[in-house]
């Protein structure tokens, strides 16, 4: 049987114990963060995870240059770049939510395990609140999954596979770069109008995730305009000499070769194809043509004169004349002495978009940031009006169809824009690639 103590001392004791008990959860939570790596009052750390070694090291170096420039502009240094043209005016050059932007860098080595390790280190040891970067879809998918688990935002750099915002999409991951589907949808009409609709295509495809989705996208879109696919061959990612893969093309009935290759693969396969005289051939009464679905200026430089007249697609090009592009090219070119690549552009834009989303949300909480990015419409960043689609966290904007320039005026003048494909033509249903976005994870 209990005995109620109503004395003054008893009431005080009971009250103290009860008060302490009620206050306990608050004591624990007030000292803990509401989300992973909640920044202090003075600075915030971003993690730039790019290939600093390995085959895409040059692209990684260009991405880093763009990140450094973005940090300068966010902190109010330099000429402000795209902050002056960005349709959202939330950013004022005073850091992010009044905190100075700092950064740490990691080397992905273009390997998924190395990329995850460096991203983990930046999150756990350096306190990075956001991870961004990458020049490979395999890496992007792996790091995106890690960021989802860790409760930080991942702003993808150069990753073109449908899977990044398709079957492997995550609530904490966002991609500004375009994808394989968009390349196919943009390219096919141009190929049809330039090469005709009665064509036989032969695909050489890099034997990994990005190659598969690109082949599928280009096949689907070109078959839709009447082309026939007469052969598809997967080539090892480590292949350097593609002569033995190109020789069968000579003996096939194909009159178009589609090189679903990127990086060194693209440089070598295109060089080999031109060496074997494919472009001088006439098959089925038509000139033989080569198509490179994803172009990069850095890779075009490696292929030299072999890119002349060859069609492909790109996310952005420094020769665009809109205000945003020109502002970025001016900032980047003045600082580094050469124009930025598409990889640099997407990384710069992603950094600004993240900072802007935090500012509009008024919080670094990944879920608040995610909410601010979802369905966000903006302009002035070099691609015209753009939507960050809420359903899959993929940006939708115009896509550039480009062609290797016949008479370049300087070493950077390698590609010419043939068409700016309107966003409506490259938009697709978010459900077609499967995958579940899941729910945002704030971590902590």
């Amino acid at each position, binding site marked *: 049987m209990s005995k109620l103590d109503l004395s003054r001392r008893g009431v005080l004791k009971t009250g103290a114990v009860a008060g302490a008990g009620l206050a306990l959860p608050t004591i624990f939570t007030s000292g803990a963060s509401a989300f992973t790596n909640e920044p202090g009052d003075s600075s915030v750390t971003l993690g730039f995870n790019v290939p600093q070694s390995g*085959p*895409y090291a040059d692209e990684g170096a260009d991405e880093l240059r763009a990140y450094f420039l973005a940090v300068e502009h966010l902190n109010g240094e330099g000429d402000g770049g795209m902050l002056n043209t960005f349709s959202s005016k939330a950013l004022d050059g005073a850091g992010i939510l009044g905190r100075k932007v700092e950064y740490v860098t990691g080397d992905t080595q273009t390997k998924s395990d190395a990329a995850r390790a460096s991203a983990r280190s930046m999150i756990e040891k350096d306190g990075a609140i956001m991870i961004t970067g990458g020049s490979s879809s395999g890496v992007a998918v792996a790091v995106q999954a890690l960021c989802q688990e860790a409760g930080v935002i991942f702003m993808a750099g150069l990753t073109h596979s449908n899977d990044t915002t398709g079957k492997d999409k995550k609530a904490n991951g966002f991609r500004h770069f375009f994808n394989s589907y968009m390349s196919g949808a943009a390219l096919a009409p141009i190929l049809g109008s330039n090469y005709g609709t009665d064509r036989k295509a032969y695909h050489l495809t890099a034997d990994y995730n990005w190659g598969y989705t690109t082949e599928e996208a280009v096949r689907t879109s070109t078959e839709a305009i009447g082309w026939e696919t007469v*052969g598809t061959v997967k080539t090892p990612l480590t292949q350097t000499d593609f*002569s033995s893969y190109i*020789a069968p093309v000579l*003996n096939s009935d194909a009159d178009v070769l589609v090189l679903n290759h990127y990086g060194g693969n693209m*440089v070598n396969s295109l060089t080999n194809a031109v060496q*074997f005289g494919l472009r001088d051939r006439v098959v089925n009464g038509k000139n033989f043509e080569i198509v490179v679905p994803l172009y990069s200026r850095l890779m075009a*430089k490696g292929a030299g004169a072999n890119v002349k007249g060859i069609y492909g697609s790109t996310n952005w090009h420094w020769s665009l004349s809109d205000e945003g592009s020109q502002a970025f090219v001016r900032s980047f070119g*003045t600082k580094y002495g050469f124009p930025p690549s598409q990889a640099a552009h997407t990384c710069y834009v992603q950094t600004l978009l993240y900072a802007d989303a935090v500012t509009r949300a008024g919080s670094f909480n990944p879920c608040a940031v995610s909410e601010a990015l979802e369905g966000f419409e903006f302009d002035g960043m070099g691609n015209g009006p753009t939507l960050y689609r809420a359903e899959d966290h993929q940006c939708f904007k115009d896509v550039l169809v480009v062609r290797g320039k016949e008479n370049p005026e300087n070493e950077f003048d390698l590609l010419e824009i043939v068409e700016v494909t309107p966003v409506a033509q490259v938009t697709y249903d978010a459900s077609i690639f499967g995958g579940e976005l899941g729910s945002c994870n704030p971590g902590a």
Partner: protein
Amino acid sequence: MDGFILQILNGLDKGSAYALIALGLTLIFGTLGVVNFAHGALFMIGAFCAVTLNRLLTLSYVTEDPSRTDFLGNPAKVETPYVVDWFGESVGLAMIDWVVPLAILFSIPIMVAVGLIMERGLIKHFYKRPHADQILVTFGLAIVLQEIIKYYYGANPIPTPAPEAFVGTFDFGAMLGFEPFTILYPYWRLVYFVFAVILIGAVFAFLQFTTFGMVVRAGMADRETVGLLGINIDRRFTLMFALAAVVAGLAGVMYTPIISPNYHMGMDFLVLSFVVVVVGGMGSLPGAVAAGFLLGILESFASMPVAISIIPGINQIIIYLVAIVILLTRPRGLMGRKGVMEE
């Protein structure tokens, strides 16, 4: 049939590169007993000799052309190579055009120096160490060399085209009575194959018909006895290391128009070349050459769509598959000598 011939031709030029690298590897192993995993890096350094000469020949002075603008809207900068100023436009531009053949001369002293420094500076300290130590140190050296190249030249491939006179294809189809344009083969690949045959022949002739070569062969057979005769066999073996470096370097120089040089190209060839050496027989020079061409041709056939459709992935495993079969049936390789790496 035309596809068959074309794949043989493809295999010959690929096999040429394998054979040249494997020849150098075998020379070093046969003379110094060293398993040199840095040999692919020598191939890569040779290729970058061509890149370097190209940069030297295209060193330019800059003038401004106010009639044009650059990407920032400033007056465009026009670069004029010094060689054009010094030797006139026709000679200067011809030198730039013929950079790859010129790089053969440029690379020989460089490769000799690299070979001697590598052997005297590092590898000689590992002669009496186990093969595992040799592999580790030379593999480490290969990584260091490729990182140095990457630091100075970047990670992206650098186009180094063949002379304009060799751009284009030879129509074997028309020559052999097939339909024209069905067996097209690039001129430069033919040049590469002929060059490889001449270089391999020159190395064999050097070993077979010179006193120096005779001593080296004697040293390979019985190092101790040759030493007892008062011959400084170590010095000759060091020179053989330099010769192997030159062979690998020249193979790299001439390969640059086929594959744009990049810092990783040595590693790409190294593993396959080791398989070639093992298949040919450790220490056997003719074996290395024969296996190089054999595996090059087999790899080409395995890349045909019909082969891939029958055995998916055969293009990626054919060389290793053949190596397994040959080693199971002939444990010393095609032309391996008894006693080599068997102690």
